């Protein structure tokens, strides 16, 4: 019997689907399936309460809406005025936050398995995303630290540019059920330029 605690991953190797390299330049776009996430949904109407909850364990403070901040491998995405997602490097701080009082000022919910991250990098990464994203991903409009929840074609995603760097590398958070569709979509959209796929290699498919 499969060990249930070994995470299964919809984008794990080997993945039946598009070829792992195609198009004129396999370095033009690199798609990387991110590892399983430790992800919390945070809802709060009082930003100070959230900041004080996160300050001690993670040294994070809320960024403005549609921005993200990272510290020591933990990233806080501000999706809305009263809505955050916290991506943790390790399980432990997440578990501690989950013990928060459900009647308290911050609603903390574990949504780790609901989402996956896909890295979209390479000199043509922006062009591939612009085939469906209506937000402006130009470096002037979307500098490092940007994180927009938006509609990507007909899939709701969070597109983020977490780090500086040229050409920009993007991080796309997509719901688990849509992950394979988006993966195939991105590969197909990148064919024009050329791509390399890097499925997740740390666990079984599922």
């Amino acid at each position, binding site marked *: *019997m499969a060990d249930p605690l070994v995470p299964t991953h919809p984008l794990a190797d080997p993945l039946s689907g598009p070829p792992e390299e195609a198009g004129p330049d396999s370095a033009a776009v690199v798609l990387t399936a991110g590892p399983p996430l430790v992800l919390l949904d945070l809802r709060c109407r009082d930003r100070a309460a959230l900041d004080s909850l996160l300050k001690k364990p993670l040294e994070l403070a809320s960024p403005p809406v549609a921005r993200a901040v990272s510290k020591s491998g933990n990233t806080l995405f501000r999706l809305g005025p009263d809505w955050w997602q916290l991506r943790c490097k390790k399980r432990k701080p997440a578990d501690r936050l989950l013990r928060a009082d459900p009647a308290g000022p911050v*609603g903390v919910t574990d*949504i780790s398995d*609901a989402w996956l991250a896909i890295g979209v990098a390479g000199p043509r990464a922006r062009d591939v995303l*612009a085939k469906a994203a209506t937000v402006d991903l130009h470096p002037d409009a979307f500098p490092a630290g940007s994180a927009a929840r938006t509609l990507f074609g007909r*899939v709701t995603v969070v597109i983020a540019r977490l780090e500086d760097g040229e050409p920009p590398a993007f991080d796309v958070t997509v719901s*688990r059920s849509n992950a*394979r569709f988006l993966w195939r979509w991105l590969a197909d*959209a990148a064919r024009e330029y050329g791509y390399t796929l890097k499925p997740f290699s740390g666990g079984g498919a*599922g």
Partner: protein
Amino acid sequence: MSGPQFRLPADTLPDGRIDREAPLGFSFNGESFTGYAGDTLASALLAYGAFPLARSFKYHRPRGIFGAGAEEPNALVQLETGGYSQPNLRATQIELYGGLSAASVNAWPSVDFDLMRVNDWLSPIFPSGFYYKTFMGAGVGAGRWWRLFEPFIRRAAGFGRAPTAPDPDRYERMNAHCDVLVVGAGPAGLSAALAAANRGGRVILVDDQTEPGGDLLAGDRRIDDAPAMDWVAAALERLGAAPDATVLARTAVAGLYDDNFATAVESVGDRFGPGAPDHLPRLRLWRIRARQIVLATGAHERPYAFANNDTPGTMLGNAIRHYAGRYAVVPGRQALLGTDNDSAYRTALLLARAGIPVTLADARETPPSALADAARQAGVDVEAGCAISAVLGDRRVRGAKIGRVLPDGEISGALRPVEADLVGVSGGWNPALHLASHRGARPVWNEAQTCFVPDDLTALGLRTAGAVTGAGSLADCLEQGYAAGRDAARAAGRTKRTRKPDLKTDDGAAGAPIRPLWAVTGRQPGSRRGKAFVDLQNDVTVKDVALAARENYRSVEHLKRYTTLGMGTDQGKTANVIGLALMGVETGRSPEAVGTTTFRPPYTPVPFGALAGRDRGALFDPVRETPMFDWHAANGAVFEDVGQWKRPYAYRRDGESLEAAIGREVRAVRNAAGVMDASTLGKIDLKGPDVVTLLNRVYTNDWETLKVGRARYGLMCHEDGMIFDDGVTARLADDHYVMTTTTGNAVTVLNWLEMWLQTEWPELRVFATSVTEAWATATVAGPEARRLVSGLDSDIDWSDDAFPHMAVRTGTVLGAPARVFRVSFSGEASWEINVPAHCGPALWQALIDGGATPYGTEAMHVLRAEKGFIIVGQETDGTVTPHDLGMGWAVSKRKDFIGKRSWSRPDTARPDRKHLVGLLPLDSGTVLPEGGQIVADPEQEPPVTMLGHVTSSYKSPSLDGSFALALLKNGRNRMGDTVHVLRLDEGADAARVVAPAFYDKDGGRMRG
């Protein structure tokens, strides 16, 4: 076809934009031709002469190439064959590639011998409005005549053929953003793009030609004492060096929309033909969001009308200039140019330089002396005060007649024959204001230029520059372009200062104003074939416009619909203004008083492939897969689409029919244990001290009494009292609940809660978070289910006492955190086990290994219907209340909630509304059609009284017969009655009305 004898020998003129080192073979109507890289299909064909390559729409008269760009009315072709084929492309806009294959459209059996030409000779019986008058009138039998003749008329009409094979190509889409979008890369557009880019703006410059340059591509203009194309090259170099300027050639803007949103179609692989590299899309649809837009879309030359002005070899004067200067093609040996303005003089001079004898008939009594002198010096025969009266020849121009023309277009005095095989006509310029019109610009009549120009749209972030404003001189175009680009960039927040370039142009001495000429009339030679066309594509003549005026179709909209003026694929780019000016002449009004029809997108036709873009095949719509998808796929699952979810409908074993599989799955749940993937059910975590208040307001039943560890079924209604969702909500802790929703409404319900929480009840302390995908859900049901779940590695006590029906427990299953609901949709004892999504496959495998039979959505539907459990969206349709379903038990009388008040409205309170009932067909082998209408008497004379409809209908393995659920008028008072369900084809089936529960009516099985 003899050789390309009309290609000018090298060195006659500068070679323009063709590359004589790169010959390209192609075929047209099955014959072989050779052109050059840089040619369009039109220029390459014209190198062989101005032969007929099309037949006209109505009269099937021979037609040749008339223009040089998007305005082309005649030269429509079918490009390539099979799935790649595209109908009705303008030969003037098809970039030549090696191996291209194209054919004429609208000719039967061939362009050289077209049987439908009979329409031309019969034209006295086919006047405008013929079809309306003959077939659509109120006269006796008109409709019958139309049915008889329609197939013939449909075949005779229309242009190319839609491809019948699937389109093998890829089409891409691209969203782009910029400060300034410049449409048109002629001198004004280039100047605007440079000015905007110099100010640091993000600029996109779009042009539908194969390369930027616009009018300068004709090669006969000079800027700063050098060929103007040198300036174009330098401008492109500077744009290339700018940090954020994109130049898109071969890209036609199709439409402008609100908030400066533009769509444009770029030819990518298209220009290589079917042999394009595999990775390239054929077309790319650009969706451009611009802060500011500069329209430098230029102008289309218009002709004036005269007899037989459609004869191949008759062209727009400026098109002749472009073919000569850009492609080194002059499709004639002797040219006659007719004009009412200055622009024909450049054409005349260029032709003269190419050694072509030219007669220039200038309608103005006194042509501007500087121009006329220069022309005469170059050997051009300038005839002042003259206009073309008629062209001679049928399949090709064999000569023409000119005469002295009066201000109203009447010829006075004798006609003079002119030897010519090429006729160019220049009747003035129509600014290409289509895109401005998309944004609501009103066309304003400019009397001096006798053209419509767009009014001011600066407030919308839209500016115009160049010929689209009516500007005539190159200097004005450059100047206006610079100003528009600068102002647009400034309005977009780019404040860097720039210096205006000082450019010297070759505009020369001032010319003379236009003397507007719309149609040359008077007695014409050859009564039968003397048609003077206004709209070449739709075969609308000067007489047709006069007829419309006589029959009082005087408004421009009536004129258009009565005569079909401007209704072709070219949308009347060369025809509209003449048509409405002639209507003005007929009715004593100015063109402005006649008005214009509204231009709507697209500017030029857009292939469906470009619109569909990436939304086709496997990527047509997003697909959602549950964590257990791979197991289902590997084990015979037949999937059904539930929204975007792929859900197993049934699992088919080798050799098993779908029906047998469903029956087997139902029996397994009734007799042993089944397991279903219920991961798609919506799950919403609700946290906060006021959750119970929220639940009380959105659900119809009472939530105060729900204890921790218990679950309750609830119905949600809209404010109109009608059900819109149902589901079970469980209380996990004092201030923590989890709500489940139907699969299809998971997002809708969350949005519904958020709407009330945000807009109406912000005081409620509740946080709602979707956890649908965080959990994988396996529902284990059946008499053996307890034995099966008890065998799982888990810390949960599964006994009835510890874990009764409608309880919820948290714990671990297989070492993973789990939420388990003891709820039943099948009527059997049933547990919904939720584990983190990544553990779903392991849980599923463990249950299968324990002996559970996997069952799909159809077995689930049968099981729940046997119990009389409803499915929202199947038993309900937005007109059904809980009371209609006999679910008053799920309604609280003690509190207010959304929808309650509507139930006391008279119609909702009626006792004889449609009620949920069961139906048992009298023939137990008959499965009633879902959706079938219920009647009391199938023999009743129409209109038949409808009593309701069948909502669910199945064959039941458990009941040994078929059964159905239905909504039936006054159903609860019809128990035992026999009703009739109409079949979808004919006939009806009798059924007995029973209570909507067929199996284990007291619910003993699911409780224990």
